[in-house]
């Protein structure tokens, strides 16, 4: 048996997927979800093999939800976005269906996935990186905190610190961990506002109040909060450029 989850905020849109799935009796729908929050829970609970996912949904987008998923299922996007908006994702070989779509088109997408059932969806990470830098979501970061989802507007971030397999996002409210790489954030965040000042630090330049020399060729950026962030030899000119010095 193949397990599926449908996530879409429009009940009728879910009905279409449900109806089209009747052609695939081996696929069983475990749950239908109204938004990304429900979706995330359902994915954790049912560990589906495939997810039919809308992109524009309440609170968090389909992409943002995927960022928080631990065991990534295969994903087929269903969206009414104009084609050009989604073409960027084509390169990642994940299928997407433009609403309204036909039963034939749906069958083709599902059949294609069934034929490659055992290949893991390794490209999803790359897809999420692409998605994160679209205007749809580049102004905020979603994180999971004690089983809840928290949305952090990027301007609230003081700095980001590498922490093994995670990154630590430091804000006035405290720091939060996210299972992403430094380069993910470097790509996603506006370089005018966020500068990679060190191998382990990305800094919100608006938070900097002072820069002091530190040890041999390094510097320390002092933030408004009083926090001190290490600036490397290569990071220093970048920070100066971002501050317009």
């Amino acid at each position: 048996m193949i397990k599926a989850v449908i996530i879409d905020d429009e009940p009728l849109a879910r009905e279409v997927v449900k109806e089209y799935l009747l052609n695939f009796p081996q696929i069983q729908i475990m749950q239908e979800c109204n938004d990304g929050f429900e979706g995330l829970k359902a994915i954790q609970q049912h560990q589906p093999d495939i997810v039919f996912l809308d992109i524009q949904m309440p609170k968090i987008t389909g992409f943002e939800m995927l960022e928080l998923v631990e065991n990534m299922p295969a994903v087929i996007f269903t969206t009414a976005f104009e084609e050009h908006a989604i073409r960027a994702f084509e390169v990642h070989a994940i299928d997407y269906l433009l609403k309204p779509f036909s039963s034939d088109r749906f069958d083709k997408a599902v059949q294609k996935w069934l034929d490659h059932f055992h290949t893991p969806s390794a490209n999803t990470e790359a897809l999420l990186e692409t998605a994160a830098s679209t205007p749809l979501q580049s102004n905020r970061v979603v994180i999971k905190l004690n089983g809840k989802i928290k949305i952090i507007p990027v301007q609230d971030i003081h700095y980001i610190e590498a922490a093994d397999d995670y990154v630590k996002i430091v804000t006035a409210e405290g720091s939060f961990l996210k299972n992403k790489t430094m380069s993910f954030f470097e790509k996603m965040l506006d370089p005018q506002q966020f500068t990679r000042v060190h191998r382990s630090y990305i800094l919100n330049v608006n938070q900097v109040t002072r820069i002091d020399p530190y040890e041999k060729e390094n510097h320390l950026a002092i933030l408004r909060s009083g926090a001190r962030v290490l600036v490397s030899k290569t990071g220093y000119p970048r920070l100066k450029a971002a501050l317009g010095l």
Partner: protein
Amino acid sequence: MQSITDSSVHVILLGAAGIVISHNVAYYRPADGKMKFGYVAVVSFALSVLWVCLSRWILVSAFPSELQYINWLNNAIPIHAFVGWMLIASIGFRSQMWYDAADQQESLQRKEATEKIVREAELFKLRQQLQPHFLFNSLNSINALIMLRPKEAREMVLKLSDFLRGSLKREDEQWITLTEELKYLQLYLDIEKVRFGHRLTTNVTQEEGLENVMMPPMLLQPVVENAIKFGLYDTTGDIAISIRSWWQDNMLYIAIQNPFDNELQQPNKGTGFGLSSIQRRLYLLFARQDLLETAANQNIFTTIIKVPQAHDKSSHN
């Protein structure tokens, strides 16, 4: 006989010189600067020399034996030349001024016409922001209903058609009644209700006596779209959208309310919620910046639009 011939030759030729300089500046006027007056001075000087020479040649040919007259004519050359130059130059300057003024008027008219076209194009663009996202999602709902509840599918097709027809019709119309606009918005809201099911409730009310109050079409549409967008996409619960209209200070007031998430949005910054295009449109229509008001209270966002009533509605654009 001599004096008549003398004066007619001089006057006719002087007139001709005046016409020549006037035409000349009609077709060519140097740009503002030092040469502006120099050009007319030089041309009129050349014309006055030509005038003196030509009149002298004609008169000498006409009266070859009248030595006394010819002598007098020769003596008068400097005076003739000076007076002629002054007259031709003054005609030249007058013409130059006249044509410059005409030019200026024309360019002003052209500028106004251009501005009007730009403004109309801008208004057209602002009016016409039908979202393809909305259209495709609605079609997708119909696709589902055809199988599930064909009767509702048909209803939805009809509503969508009415809505689309309404938005096409609105492109030609300058002003419509409030009742018409609200009916149109109701269609839009009904379609959204089908899409979002039980999550969305709407409440559209209108003060009595406002049936024939006029307003620009498609002014409320983007505001309601915004209300839906922020209501439906910022919150996960049920949302209620209300549209109220009333008469106050000789203006039509329309208030649109929607819930929003005050953690996700900071509506107090600027006009917020992408309402700048409404602001722009109201400014283009009424040349006033104070016709759009927004307020955020707890998690309810209110947009108020005021529509002044022009005396002559049909000629208002």
